[in-house]
């Protein structure tokens, strides 16, 4: 069973109130001064950490740009290779139709034999 009653609690709180509110900075002072969040300020070490962090971020950005450019160059060369590719049958386009149908037809031979490289033999 507790021996401290409400009245005693009130007296304790009253005492605490008196002690704490004995000196309070004025309202004018506290409502005018600009707020400073936290009373911590970075030391020299913290500045180095910040500078290091910024440097790392810059390096990462440069690396990213470099990688992107390399990627683009690879794509560009691949695209160039595709656009310069020509099918083997293009040779037919450079031959006049007269050369193609000029000679007499022979059994077992084709007019293309003279134009295209020999393929597999059976």
């Amino acid at each position, binding site marked *: 069973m507790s021996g401290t009653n409400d009245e005693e609690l009130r007296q*304790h709180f009253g005492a*605490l109130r008196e002690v704490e509110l*004995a000196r309070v900075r004025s309202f004018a002072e506290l409502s005018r001064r600009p707020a400073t969040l936290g009373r911590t300020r970075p030391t020299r070490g913290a500045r180095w950490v910040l500078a290091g962090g910024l440097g790392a971020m810059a390096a990462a950005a440069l690396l990213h740009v470099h990688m992107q450019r390399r990627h683009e160059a690879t794509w560009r060369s691949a695209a160039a290779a595709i656009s310069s590719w020509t099918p083997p049958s293009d040779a037919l386009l450079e031959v006049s139709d007269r050369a193609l149908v000029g000679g007499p037809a022979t059994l077992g031979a084709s007019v293309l034999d003279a134009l295209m490289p020999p393929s597999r033999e059976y």
Partner: protein
Amino acid sequence: MNDAELRAQLESLHSECFGWSLACCRRDRDDAEEVLQMAYLAVLDGRARFDGRSSFRTWVFGVIRLTAATLRRRRWLRRLLLDRHAHRVHGPTEHPSLEAAVIDRDRAERLRRALDRLSERQRGVLQLVFYHGLTVDEAAEVLGIGVGSARTHYARGKARLADLLDAERR
């Protein structure tokens, strides 16, 4: 309520507000002043608006509580990021001899120690009721909790506080 009226209201409650701010900052005077200043500026700049749903005191106490919570969160984040590289600039330290003249100093000290051992909610309700003279319902409003919950915190906190004070006396 215009700016002049707001200022007048705040000024009339200034001591009370400081006492509540102290309670929200675990009795740290520097933090309490900082919180109070932030809260005043929030009210005067119109970032916190009084809508008249409760008494002005209850409302402004709520603003102070939320401001203290915000400051605590920011401090925690800052500590997480810069703990090793930041040093705290202390305000003037409280000299015990300054308070020696106060007759009830021992009583206040014992209460401070006992309050430290209560839960945050219990401490808050008891502070608002016994220190600021609010009702439990008003305390619930300030703390943003239900009345039933506030009553429970009040009863349990009071019993525990009485036990702690008794134990200190022995």
